[in-house]
């Protein structure tokens, strides 16, 4: 069971070697993971929309989509048909080329990052030796395309959404990138496979003091990076209509949606890989463990969406720059200390330093609540 997909892959390659000429067989062998990802990505996205709608409905005491197919399982297909048949509206004053290119380009990095995710033992498309860095770099380019979309729409609300998106993503990118550094320090490699193999059995990094802190920072920043509630200021419906995709309709809008949901999946998968041990775990096959961890994180994100109110812009910025950034810096040093010290002592030292840091940062970040005013003469009678 564990190597099921690997065996299928091998079987197809064997068949290709028997039937096709040599060089075509090599091309087929290269294309199998690409085709698998190109199918897996959009299908995941389609059913994530369904899961999200169902879950949000349950949180709000509704049923959610249940008309098309059993439990609404065909709803995504119906949505797809609707999106495809909708009229494609381009505003007259829009920058036509950029307006067309932005939704197409935004899907590319979202698909590319699938390549470095280890879905299970021996189940990775490309084991790049800079895997994590590649992921972070690719997800960083999303900002540019969101901004292009916002600018090309020639619409006030889009532009405001774009500006907010850039400010937010730039701010959260720094703790996002730096919170992985402790893991890289301990593992000594950028490769996602090496990171997973450094957490055998249940020795996941999240169970070490610096790993726990790193996991929380990384997950929060991941939620902010994919623009989801409570960090969804760029597309706040109640303030900005729909933010950067206000002027998009039909399939172009669907592409933005697709990029967003694929980013949700890949980012959760990266969090699971780096801190939750990826496909490591007892009993179950490796890819089941991986999907289990990833979907747990995705469901937590949806739970956030159902329960948290949106942050204010100043709270958003303050949280990134005044709290998360300092904590990540301390966390890197703590990880180095943990790595150098001997076993029981290192956990205690690391935990002590981190707890002190968090308390100090909380003290500095306290919102100033003005003293309760007593109106002496207000109720004079």
């Amino acid at each position, binding site marked *: 069971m564990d190597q099921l997909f690997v065996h299928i892959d091998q079987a197809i390659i064997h068949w290709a070697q028997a039937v096709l000429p040599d060089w075509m067989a090599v091309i087929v062998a290269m294309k199998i993971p690409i085709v698998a990802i190109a199918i897996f990505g959009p299908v995941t996205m389609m059913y994530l929309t369904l899961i999200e709608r169902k879950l949000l409905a349950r949180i709000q005491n509704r049923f959610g989509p249940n008309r098309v197919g059993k439990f609404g399982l065909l709803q995504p297909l119906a949505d797809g048909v609707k999106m495809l048949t909708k009229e494609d509206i381009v505003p007259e*004053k829009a920058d036509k080329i950029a307006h067309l290119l932005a939704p197409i380009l935004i899907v590319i990095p979202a698909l590319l990052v699938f390549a470095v995710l280890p879905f299970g033992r021996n189940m990775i498309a490309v084991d790049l030796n800079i895997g994590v860095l*590649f992921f972070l770099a690719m997800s960083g380019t999303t900002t540019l395309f969101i901004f*292009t979309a916002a600018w090309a729409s020639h619409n006030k609300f889009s532009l405001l959404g774009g500006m907010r998106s850039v400010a937010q993503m730039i701010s959260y990118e720094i703790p996002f990138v730096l919170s992985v550094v402790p893991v890289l320090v301990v593992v000594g490699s*950028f490769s996602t496979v090496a990171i997973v193999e450094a957490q055998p059995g249940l020795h996941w990094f999240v169970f070490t003091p610096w790993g726990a802190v790193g996991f929380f920072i990384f997950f929060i920043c991941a939620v902010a990076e994919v623009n989801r509630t409570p960090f969804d200021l760029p597309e706040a419906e109640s303030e900005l209509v729909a933010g950067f995709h206000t002027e998009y309709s039909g399939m172009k809008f669907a592409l933005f949606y697709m990029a967003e949901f694929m980013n949700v999946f890949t980012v959760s998968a990266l969090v699971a890989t780096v801190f939750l041990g990826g496909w490591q775990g007892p009993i179950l096959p490796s890819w089941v463990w991986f999907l289990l961890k990833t979907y747990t994180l995705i469901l937590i994100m949806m739970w956030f969406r159902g329960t948290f109110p949106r942050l204010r812009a100043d709270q958003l910025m303050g949280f990134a720059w005044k709290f998360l950034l300092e904590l990540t810096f301390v966390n890197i040093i703590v990880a180095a200390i943990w790595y150098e010290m001997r076993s029981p002592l290192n956990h205690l030292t690391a935990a002590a330093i981190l707890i002190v840091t968090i308390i100090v940062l909380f003290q500095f970040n306290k919102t100033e609540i003005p003293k309760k005013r007593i109106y002496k003469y207000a109720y004079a009678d």
Partner: protein
Amino acid sequence: MEVLTAISKVGIYVIFGVTLLGAMMAVTLRNIFHAALSLALTLIGVAAVFFVLRAEFLGAVQILLYVGGIMILVIFTVMLTTRIGDRTIPTSNHQQWPVLIGALLLLLYFVRMIGKTPWSIKSELAVVSAVQIGKSLVSTFIFPFELTAVILVAILIGTVILAKSDEGEEKS
């Protein structure tokens, strides 16, 4: 196998072509926003060249810093300064033609010098790993490394002071 080698070679030249096209668009397009987007194309092309030359770490850093950082800064500045859709103003100054001739002559000179120089090419092409770069940064190049840190702090302070609007005057 020859087919695959040929395909990969053609791929490299395609990357070169796209990058140069992006650069030409970046320096000639009228709409400065489109020029900035072409710059992004150029930068991604250069990152791809790095990947082809087996400098993966540099390629990733290039995308992370240039496309994720500098491009955003440039686009932000375009946004904050020009009126959107201002296309009537000429974008190049009167030196355009002399500069074009000068640049072409310089290119000619470069090409001749590259052709004439006897390069001492190694028998085995080098591959540099990220670990080697890191070790080199904190051993051989420790002084420039620290110096860069000082410069970055200075630039951080300088940028904040420059970009801050003056408190005394009315806010602009």
